């Protein structure tokens, strides 16, 4: 059962989101909710079945799902609430979250702090503009990874992989393990873009050829990819004529970069850095919108999950601190309510602690004139806090009364102060 109001809502349950929820709870946030699009927690870690996770943070070498499991277990132990299989549609700068799922229907939640942890998305064929026909058999490496590791089917038999990022190299090994032939890995840059350890254990170990300074200049095939044309590029990344090579294959995987996913951030009014394509953040991972924090690949693309978890911890801690301060600020407020013959009062609320520094002036207008001596009274229920005598009151003349510093103790007990005008 969802609550109406949370201390911290985390959007996304990858390593950043799990870390944020855990640390928010540990730092004293009471009601913490994770909203996740998938049917289970863990984000992309669930399809990253290779080992190498946790070496820095946990001093253990774990497969991605096992790394995620540690934090999923902790989330459960700490009593973090989860809304799975749910899509966040909108986030407002005032920290209202609009989401929908088959289980909850459409929901509007209010929260004192938000951690954005939506991760990133893969760059696609359209974004790198590969010429040629548009047959089936062109996938991003991450999509193929999901097919092979979670859904349990192979997207092809003979592969060419464009991009030497870690996902591309890891998929080269994975597909080889499942009996496919990876004919070539092509990299536009003159250097490897993933970790060298992955070059060794994913490409070298299985004699998968890597060509640096090469790209795909054309995709061939009508219904299905039949071949790709590889070409060498110069130092301006322009194809060098005469270096074209046709490589027969039925599938092309793209591992050509990741882009922070900030559609929701933009809706919430979060300002983005054009270089990282993630939010501008301060040292606490707070964005330019107070109470909205961000962590992980949504901020900038990491190469190690350990540091994503760490960023999640920081953002979660900061979000909890913000939420607790917000709770305290609201708890310190006393409402000012119009009583007999008062139309309105400004201010509408008052910080009780403000009396520690100075008297606090209330301004108001009456509804009816009283041509005779009156008391302007400030009451907590029936208990008089302060009053002031006037010779008359008229709607056209603003009435003021100062709550004196000596009323500090009386005001601390009150939730609401009522102001009224009575005849003396």
């Amino acid at each position: 059962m969802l609550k109406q109001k949370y201390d911290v809502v985390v959007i996304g349950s990858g390593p950043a989101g799990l870390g944020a929820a855990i640390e928010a709870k540990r730092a004293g946030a009471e009601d913490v909710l994770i909203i996740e699009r998938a049917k289970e927690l863990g984000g992309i870690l669930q399809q990253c079945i290779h080992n190498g996770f946790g070496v820095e943070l946990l001093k253990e070498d774990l497969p991605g799902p096992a790394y995620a499991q540690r934090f999923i277990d902790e989330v459960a132990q700490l009593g973090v609430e989860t809304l799975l299989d749910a899509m966040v549609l909108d986030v407002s700068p005032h920290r209202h979250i609009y989401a929908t799922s088959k289980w909850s229907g459409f929901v509007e939640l209010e929260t004192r702090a938000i951690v954005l942890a939506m991760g990133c998305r893969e760059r696609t064929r359209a974004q790198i503009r590969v010429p040629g026909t548009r047959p089936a058999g062109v996938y991003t490496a991450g999509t193929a990874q999901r097919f092979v590791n979670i859904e349990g089917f192979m997207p092809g038999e003979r592969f060419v992989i464009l991009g030497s990022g870690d996902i591309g190299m890891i998929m080269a090994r994975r597909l080889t393990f499942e009996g496919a032939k990876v004919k070539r890995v092509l990299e536009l840059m003159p250097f490897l873009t993933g970790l060298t350890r992955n070059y060794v254990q994913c490409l070298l170990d299985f004699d998968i050829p890597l060509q640096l300074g090469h790209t795909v200049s054309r995709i061939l095939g009508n219904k299905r990819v039949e071949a790709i044309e590889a070409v060498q590029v110069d130092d301006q990344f322009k194809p060098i004529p005469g270096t074209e090579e046709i490589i027969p294959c039925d599938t092309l995987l793209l591992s050509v970069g990741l882009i922070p996913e900030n559609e929701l951030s933009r809706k919430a009014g979060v300002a983005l850095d054009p270089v990282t394509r993630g939010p501008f953040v301060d040292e606490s991972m707070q964005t330019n919108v107070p109470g909205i924090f961000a962590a992980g690949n949504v901020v900038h693309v990491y190469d190690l999950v350990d540091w994503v978890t760490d960023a999640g911890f920081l953002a979660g801690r900061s979000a909890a601190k913000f939420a607790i301060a917000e709770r305290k600020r609201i708890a310190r407020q006393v409402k000012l309510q119009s009583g007999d013959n008062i139309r309105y009062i400004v201010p509408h609320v008052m910080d009780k602690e403000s009396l520690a520094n100075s008297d606090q002036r209330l301004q108001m207008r009456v509804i009816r004139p009283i041509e005779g001596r009156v008391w302007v009274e400030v009451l907590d229920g029936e208990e008089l806090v302060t009053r002031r005598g006037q010779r008359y009151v008229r709607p056209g003349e603003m009435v003021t009364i100062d709550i004196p510093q000596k009323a500090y103790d009386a005001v601390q007990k009150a939730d609401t102060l009522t102001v009224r005008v009575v005849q003396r």
Partner: protein
Amino acid sequence: MAEEVTKMICITCPVGCSLEVTREGMTIIKVDGNQCKRGLDYAESELVDPRRMVPTTVKVRGGVHPLVPVCTAAPIPKPLIFKLLAELRKVELQAPIHVGQVVLGNALGTGVDVLASRNLVAI
């Protein structure tokens, strides 16, 4: 016997140090380029008995997914990788599955267990 230099890249951690291993036959004289002592162990192992972790998936009956990811608990000899994969292709588990559950004990007599990499609930 003459000294030889073998170059290799340590894969123990994400740093990926480039190692230069000076050796006489299979006896290591010295290792250069490593940033920590794990590099020495790696050079030793890579020279005489190269080993790798093997992450893959096995079939599952009655689970929320048709597969569960598994991984060797420790590196196994490199020449056994494809034999192990063939062995794991024969395995079919029944959900629920718990992380760390032994999927294949003492795989191919290596003394290394293959473990489930996640919890997988039954439908």
